[in-house]
């Protein structure tokens, strides 16, 4: 470790200074940074990059972690969610990693965060200008389920030949009377590149269209980075007679009463009892703090969350 690198981490505990700031070596960061800029210059195109082994397994957010490590600085405020929740184990683990290696402040508050890393969700609170959203991507290739060969799918993107995707959606309609994709629903970026939005529910797709934040997608195992700049057209594929539609629920959030958020189903017993709660834990907690209450507002679940939060603080 050079003096400069140590100086750049004044708050790190001595044992943590063994690794450089934000874990990655500077050459790797430069490689990733170059890939990010090209990804923004060619919205929706998957830039191959020399993904490194990270200290967490492939499939557990290595792409997102490498993106965050390449962009993060000590002035950032970092939020990390999995399934929309700040307190799921993998989100906690990744958040702790960056708090340690990048000396950043962390938050659960969507509005306060400068970098939001996520697996499978876009927060309910609209993203703002200046925020960066980092998505963890298991399979960057939207066509992979239809064509396993990279050599073939790369050619399809090169020549904008997306007939295969439309045929597949059409076959859905013949089989189910509607488009079956429910998560990872393919989108067209600026009417040129077909892109996988990562396995977010299609409920979140409309949030990407002309949104003011920078959206970065990282697939570590598949070694691809792609991006959607702010204020970019993002269209979910559909047909004139079968327009794109998002999920909706008959129920509201049992804890905060929200009727506009993505809901998770919580099984209460083995007799078919269940309740629905917001997947976005911060959105739900914020609403409850502001006095909103759902039909099961006093449920033990709300208290357990608060208890844990208090203990961890």
């Amino acid at each position, binding site marked *: 470790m050079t003096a400069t690198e140590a100086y750049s981490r004044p708050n790190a505990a001595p044992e943590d200074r063994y690794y450089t700031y934000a874990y990655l070596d500077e050459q790797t*960061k430069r490689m990733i940074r170059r890939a990010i800029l090209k990804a*923004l210059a060619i*919205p929706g195109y998957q830039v191959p990059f020399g993904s490194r082994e990270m200290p967490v397994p492939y499939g557990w957010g290595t792409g997102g972690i490498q993106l965050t490590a390449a962009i993060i600085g000590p002035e950032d405020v970092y939020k990390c969610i999995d399934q929309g929740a700040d307190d799921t184990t993998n989100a906690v683990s990744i958040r702790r990693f960056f708090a340690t290696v990048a000396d950043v402040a962390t938050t659960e508050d969507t509005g306060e965060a400068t970098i939001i890393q996520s697996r499978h969700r876009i927060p309910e609170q609209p993203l703002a200008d200046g925020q960066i959203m980092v998505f963890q991507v298991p399979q960057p290739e939207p066509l992979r389920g239809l064509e396993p060969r990279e050599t073939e799918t790369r050619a399809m993107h090169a020549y904008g030949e997306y007939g295969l995707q439309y045929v597949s959606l059409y076959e859905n309609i013949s089989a189910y009377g509607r488009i079956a994709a429910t998560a990872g629903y393919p989108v067209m970026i600026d009417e040129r590149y077909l892109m996988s939005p990562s396995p977010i529910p299609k409920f979140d797709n409309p949030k990407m269209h*002309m949104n003011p934040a920078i959206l970065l997608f990282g697939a570590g195992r598949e070694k691809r980075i792609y991006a959607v700049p*702010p204020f970019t057209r993002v269209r979910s594929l559909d047909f004139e007679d079968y327009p794109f539609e998002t999920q909706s629920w008959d129920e509201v959030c049992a804890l905060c009463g929200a009727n506009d958020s993505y809901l998770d189903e919580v099984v209460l017993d083995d007799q078919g009892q269940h309740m629905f709660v917001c997947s976005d834990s911060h959105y739900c907690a914020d609403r409850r703090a502001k006095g909103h209450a759902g039909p099961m507002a006093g449920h033990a679940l709300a208290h357990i969350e608060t208890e844990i939060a208090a203990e961890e603080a």
Partner: protein
Amino acid sequence: MNAPLNLAELRPGFFEPVRDSQSVFRALLTATAQPGTQVELGKALTPPVGLNQTAAAVLLTLADQDTLVWLEPSLRGGAVESWLRFHTSCPLTERAEEAAFAVVSDTALAPQPLSAFNQGDAKYPDLATTVLVMVQNLETGGKLVLEGPGIETVAEIAPQGVPDFFWSERAELVAHFQFGIDVMLCAEATLVSIPRTTRIQIKGE
């Protein structure tokens, strides 16, 4: 082969390479995500004569042993080359078509057609050259109106010293998106990024 480095009178690079390159990159990220937005960077640098602060900061941040850099002929063989090789270890090339980064000043644009740079490959458009164009400022030249991804409605810049033929050449190249070059206009301490997706209208003085 690269000539031996002349280390006499070598100007310094970043004071704190890890921190400085991170903050310069974040400015470049904002600039590239929002074409037309002016970002400030490289203010503390004292680059060698021939290179301005922003171009110097971009190179210190992004160039290394894995990137071939093309310098306009007037910058070769002297202080700029020594400085660049010492601080970034980047290999230099005289073949524009293989450059990852190219550095030109507005006055030297004419002899180098943009089509000579790497336009990317249909399957790998990311291989296209990023061209750093050093300009005098971004306010007093002919007005340009920008549209495209990253721009909510329109953005305006007025770079001083970039000839109109540069923009028409660029327009021809990027008409065949996904091919094209990505440009960074580097004024002293401020920079604007113009990726290939940005559509430009020349409004004049």
